């Protein structure tokens, strides 16, 4: 039924779409064997496009996870506006027909043998491999921290999952009720959705103001380096907003340990360790490549992206320079930016179109410019639609939406528009 509905709608509208449509993308008749490691946003979007654009290829998806989480919605769960059910779906509902799903995790990558080995011991050979495993939240890298503590002892963390985001919402509400010092921040590692720690800070401030409790709170944002955001104009704007809302900022503070019982957090700073008391803390864990990737030959061997095991990739094509039949997409890709669903939306067509061109005997020409997007929620009902590329240049999609202005229309996109776009992306339609 779903398929018929889509086909009917697409047929009706196709006549008005002159060109450039995903539905009209080029195809390849190559009988390649393609393995996709990971069924997150990137993996499912890849599977949908490859199935449609390479109808004679064998497409195999490997992932043990059955649930699918709309992670951009975790902030809204933490704001108490959405429920965990609003961000929880099933991978099976997005699996394209004709794609084989091996419901196991990848245990080992063997790019020299052009195969991966699953946790069940199955060796799966490939002609082309797409690494889309996502990343690992390394809570234990913060001494004293454990994901099980989320929602307890004044500890929040929206990244761990829908239930933990909801527990964080309750922790924020309790903090606003009792008052005290709230600490926010981000890790020094590469991370997904680098705007989320700022959003949680803004949301806490806004909820406290709405309840007339802002005076009872002291909010402190601990930036990991000398900026609150990597893109200079965004840094300037957020800094000004923080100042206007009485949110203090400590620069070059990296969380290294917490003592949940004593409610004390220790930060590494250029001047040595600093310990701060808190009543509430939003912990954002360091993020790393999963062990199967880190222990393989795929990661960068030197440079800043080597430390946490991100897959080596040419940043314009996401192709592995040492293993040209390997591509990495999404959070795991070792490129300077791009750990957001918005990045995936732009990365997937590039790698798929290039593979199709190559297998059809044409020259691959598509490039990814590092596009990423962060609808930065600055209050409930207001957001800044920030989009930028590898160079940190702002690249607004809509000429009528000022990227550094707090707008309800940007909130509308965040609250109503993103989920539909994300789902369409999973089906290879956006």
């Amino acid at each position, binding site marked *: 039924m779903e398929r018929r509905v889509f086909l009917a709608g697409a047929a009706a509208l*196709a006549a008005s779409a002159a060109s450039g449509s995903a539905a009209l993308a080029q195809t390849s008749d190559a009988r390649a064997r393609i393995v996709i490691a990971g069924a997150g946003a990137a993996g499912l979007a890849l599977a949908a496009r490859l199935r449609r654009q390479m109808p004679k290829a064998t497409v195999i998806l490997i992932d043990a996870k059955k649930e699918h989480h709309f992670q951009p919605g975790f902030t809204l769960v933490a704001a108490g506006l959405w429920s965990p059910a609003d961000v929880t779906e099933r991978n099976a509902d997005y699996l394209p027909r004709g794609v084989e799903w091996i419901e196991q995790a990848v245990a080992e990558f063997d790019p020299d043998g052009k195969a991966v080995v699953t946790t069940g011991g199955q060796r799966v050979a490939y002609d082309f491999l797409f690494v889309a495993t996502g990343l690992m939240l390394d809570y234990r890298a913060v001494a004293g921290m454990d994901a099980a503590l989320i929602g307890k002892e004044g500890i929040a963390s929206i990244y761990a999952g829908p239930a933990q985001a909801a527990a964080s919402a309750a922790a924020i509400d309790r903090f606003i009720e009792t008052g005290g010092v709230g600490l926010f921040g981000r890790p020094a590692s590469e991370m997904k959705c680098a705007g989320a720690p700022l959003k949680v800070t803004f949301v806490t401030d806004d909820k406290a103001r709405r309840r007339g409790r802002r005076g009872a709170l002291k909010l402190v944002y601990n930036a990991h380096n000398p900026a609150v955001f990597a893109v200079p104009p965004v840094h300037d704007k957020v800094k000004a907003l923080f100042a206007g809302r009485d949110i203090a900022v400590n620069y070059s503070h990296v969380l290294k340990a917490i003592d949940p019982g004593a409610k004390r957090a220790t930060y590494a700073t250029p001047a040595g360790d600093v310990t701060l008391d808190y009543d509430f803390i939003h912990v954002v864990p360091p993020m790393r490549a999963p062990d199967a990737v880190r222990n393989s030959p795929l990661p960068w061997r030197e440079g800043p992206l080597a430390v946490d095991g991100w897959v080596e990739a040419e940043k314009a094509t996401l192709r592995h320079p040492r293993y040209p039949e390997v591509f990495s997409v999404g959070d795991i890709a070792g490129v300077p930016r791009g750990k957001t669903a918005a990045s995936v939306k732009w990365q997937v067509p590039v790698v798929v179109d290039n593979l199709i061109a190559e297998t059809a005997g044409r020259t691959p020409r598509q490039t990814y410019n590092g596009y990423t997007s962060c609808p930065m929620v600055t209050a409930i009902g207001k957001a800044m639609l920030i989009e930028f590329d590898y160079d940190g240049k702002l690249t607004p999609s809509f000429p009528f939406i000022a990227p550094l202005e707090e707008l309800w229309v940007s909130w509308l996109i965040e609250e109503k528009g993103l989920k539909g776009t994300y789902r369409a992306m999973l089906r290879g339609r956006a």
Partner: protein
Amino acid sequence: MSDFNPVTLFFILHETFGAWLWLLIGLALVLAAGIAVSVMRLRRAGRPPLRPMTAALMIGTVATALATAFIVPRWTLTDIGAFGAAIDYLVAVLLALIPAAVVASLVFMMAARRCASRHAAG
């Protein structure tokens, strides 16, 4: 923005609204048919559509204002205080036109029916 071609937009709308999108399209078709029937009825009765149109425009304007102030902000989990820039009001009004158009269409059909009936009775 060039990425948002009609086909992509259709799929995004479908994924956003699901079955509601088809209900809305169905409702729009029913209302359009109702308006066409009302206009034909007025023609047969030899009555101009001015009064039903005026009533529909007046009620539609009020409905637009009410929907802009209450329904649209509430639908996005906020209140009218979130609107700050001209673009916010513009987009909110455009969204408010959807329920307002439904109300205006119903008012037009009812007024046209009454007009035509009065003429027939007279």
